[in-house]
């Protein structure tokens, strides 16, 4: 389509979104240096490389109209499922879970990209499907296909097992469905089905360590020795930050390794310990701004596909950030979910960057016909 007026288009770049992303990335890298000071390798450098790759990918993506994703949706979805299946058979086992695929010296975590693939394929389905428009509202029966699209990857992720990513993927998809017109009655039925499903999942599918985590959340003191240790140490880290924090590189919980997984799932605890309430509020504000910007892009997209894509990305950032920060500050159970753009991890960094790229792309082309 019309690619000739690049200069004009770039005038419409969502500058606040870019700035917000870059600020979070910079703070994240700075924080990671502190969190991994005692690590044998320079992990922050690795993270910076992936950040660079992500930024380049965003830049390249800007030149391709997002509507190309309509075409790429199915191949992307199938590829993502293929990779997940690959993980199940040939994945690298770390701490009892198969989550990674090894490509030479590089590791890839397909579940991070599955989230994007699900967002794209759902956006495509809601754009193409006429039922909603015809009936005015979706009933549950009308949604069996999107549900199928969600359930397959979620089940594969759960099998790894990766409860956190499965939950987030499911939450993102549900959020997108909410934004399509669904009957209230059906929403309630879904909720009931969700509860029933959880009970079933609890009894049939959850691994003991996953059950332990939920139990630990419900009663952390009773499990202080084992699983609750993470939750308690994280809350101690956050709480001991007080107003202004202990200062960069001075967090005892972080530096003396009392915080578990301090560079991945518990990266916010490091931040809150070293930069206190002020730093914590700043970071929450940045993520809130990011999600609000994504919603803004969704509201102003030029077509339904762009809207749903942006909604999905908004949901992606929202759920990740909310669950992660909620988890490390003890308002949610400990489920392994990275903090977008902050936690160490190449796959998640790249996936998050691609999400930002999609947002910028939709926003860039909002006035194009």
């Amino acid at each position, binding site marked *: 389509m019309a690619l000739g007026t690049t200069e004009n288009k770039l005038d419409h770049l969502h500058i606040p979104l870019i700035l917000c992303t870059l600020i979070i990335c910079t703070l994240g890298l700075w924080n990671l240096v502190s969190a991994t000071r005692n690590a044998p390798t320079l992990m922050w450098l690795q993270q910076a490389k992936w950040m660079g790759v992500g930024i380049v990918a965003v830049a390249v993506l800007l030149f391709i109209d997002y509507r190309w994703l309509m075409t790429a949706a199915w191949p992307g979805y199938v590829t993502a499922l293929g990779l997940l299946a690959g993980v199940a058979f040939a994945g690298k086992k770390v701490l009892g879970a198969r989550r990674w695929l090894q490509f030479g010296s590089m590791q890839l975590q397909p579940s991070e990209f599955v989230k994007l693939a699900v967002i794209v394929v759902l956006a495509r389905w809601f754009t193409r499907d006429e039922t909603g428009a015809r009936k005015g509202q979706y009933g549950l029966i009308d949604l069996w296909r999107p549900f199928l699209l969600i359930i397959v990857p979620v089940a594969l992720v759960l099998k790894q097992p990766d409860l956190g990513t499965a939950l987030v993927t499911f939450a993102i998809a549900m959020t997108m469905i909410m934004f399509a017109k669904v009957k209230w009655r059906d929403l309630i039925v879904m909720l009931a089905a969700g509860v029933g499903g959880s009970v079933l999942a609890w009894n049939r599918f959850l691994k003991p360590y996953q059950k332990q985590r939920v139990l630990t959340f419900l009663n952390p003191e009773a499990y202080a020795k084992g699983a609750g240790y993470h939750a308690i140490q994280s*809350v*101690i880290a956050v709480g001991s930050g007080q107003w202004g924090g202990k200062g960069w590189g001075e967090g005892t919980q972080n530096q003396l*390794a009392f915080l578990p997984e301090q560079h991945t799932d518990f990266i916010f605890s490091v931040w*809150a310990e070293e930069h206190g309430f002020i730093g914590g509020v700043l970071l929450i504000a940045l993520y809130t701004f990011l999600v609000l910007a994504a*919603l803004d892009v969704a509201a102003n997209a030029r077509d339904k596909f762009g*809207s749903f894509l942006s909604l999905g990305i908004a949901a992606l950032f929202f759920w990740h950030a*909310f669950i992660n920060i909620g988890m490390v500050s003890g308002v949610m159970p400990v489920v392994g979910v990275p903090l977008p753009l902050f936690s160490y991890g190449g796959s998640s960094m790249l996936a998050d960057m691609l999400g930002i790229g999609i947002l910028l792309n939709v926003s860039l082309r909002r006035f194009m016909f």
Partner: protein
Amino acid sequence: MLVRRDVDDIREIRPRAALGALIVVCCSLVLIVRLYQLQILRGEEYVNQAFANFRKSLFVPADRGLIKDRRGRTLVDNRPSFDVFMTPAFCKGKERDDVIARLKSYLLLEPEDVERIKSDYQKSWLSKDKLERFKPFMIALDIPRDQVDVLEAHKTEMSCVNLIPTPHRAYHAPVSLGHVLGYMSEVTPEELDENPSYRRGQTIGRRGIERRWERELKGEDGKQNIAVDAKGRELDKDTQEALIPEAERLVPATPGNNLILTIDERLQEAADQAFPGRAGAVVVMEAKTGYILALVSRPSFDPNKMSGRISKSELAALNSDPLKPMLFRVMNENYHPGSTFKVVTSLAGLENGIISPNSVLSCGGGYTMGNHRWRCDKPAGHGPLTLTRALEVSCDVFYYALGDKVGLDPLGEMAHRLGYGQPTGFDLGREIPGIIPETTSITPESGSARAHAINAAIGQGEVNVTPLQQAVAYAAIANGGDVLRPQIVRRIESPDGKVLREFPPEVVRKLGLKDGELEAVRAGLVAVVNEAGGTAYRSRLADVRFAGKTGTAQVMKLGQRQKLDPSMVQYYSRDHAWFASFAPAEDPEIVVVVLNEHGGWGAEAAAPAAARTIESYFRLKRDDAAGPPVATSAVVQ
């Protein structure tokens, strides 16, 4: 083909996006409120918890006070050794099992020790007090040097295990002082409940000086706070200094105070060597002060063993030994005094006007009361005797007659005046009072008061005394009438040598006897040793004139009291041999009491030991006077 969104779409999406935005903002506010709650409202609490995470408290054991003899010779001090402790918070799960397995093999722990360690570990975690798990608990005390090396070599694999350099007690004194010094052992849980200032694994004084003066000797433990990481590894110096305020880094220990005893270690050894029996006691006391110079209680125990690695079987053997090594014979066992008690009868007779120093009583070889006849040692009889002569030859009939005339209660009254029948006030734990019969306390079945008096007159029947009481009574006779409190601690000094407390001689009471009475008895005691007919004449010394009284106390019939090795029956049927003495006879400096359990004749089995001890005392005194002054400041006041 995509179509541009229509107005409907926008109308649909915008309100929902707005609602979504509202929800997002609300959720963010929830998180911020939570952060406020954690960081601002409860921030201090978490700061303390974070602090408790990395702060590891190690105690710095205080040096226990030294125990020295009167000349400043160290009898008990502390030797460096290592105790092993473990901090539960720093090893969890698999690491715990690994560490315990390592400790088991490195320290050669018994299965019961391993069980105890596991249960202590568990208790720390289950404690309501969250900081309890950060408190180290005891794994093993006083481990051998080679085990220290092994633990040092595996330090990194067991970062939750700490080697605490702890001074342990070292007893350099002769084993014969075991009862006097006592020993150390671990505090019991009950004692911990009563005394919160002690910690698990700490030792406390048992018996003797160690127990009586625990509070002076103990000192106060110091504390060292160090910063560790989550694995319990000690951090580098800079981080330490940044994390732990200087004032909390090291609280130094305060050493305990030193005790200077009245014991002379050399004389103690000499007395022990001079004593020939398998069981018994020797008391050497200054006649005018009550200060104890030597105190043998045989058999004894080795405080070094009792304080450390005594095996269960050794302990069982110690407790089942028929000679009762744990019994402090000096003040915790009753003996008939036999003829040594005749000084009491003599004084009672004189004081009550029954006899005068020159009165004569005749011995015909026996004494009859009613249809009972008490025989003398010399069947032919001693003939007419004065008091001096009666003591010299230890004529029983003289004393039967005298006792009969004096009566049971006046005899008992004199015994009490001399310190019998009551604790001497020796400040070294429980002391038995002995038995002095009175008309009110005897039962009719055991005989009439007259019969009791006749028996008591020669230290038999119901009369029971301790060797220490004998020393006190003979000292009173020797020094002219002061009943002294025996003492063994001369003074207490601070670690830097400052005198904190002195123990001056203490006169419990004056005998208050009429002029000449003590002189008459002393003349008899001099004759015992220095006259050709005296019972202890063979033990006299060439260069020191001393005085004393032999005693041969009949023991109770064995009966079915205990099952004994047949070879021991003869031993247990033999009489107890006594010798109570003072020297020099004219101006007494020391009192020496020897009790040789089942030793036979006092003249043969006790007097020579006393003589040799007296000889040693004066030899040592001459050495001290001739040689250079003893090189110890402790003697100089």
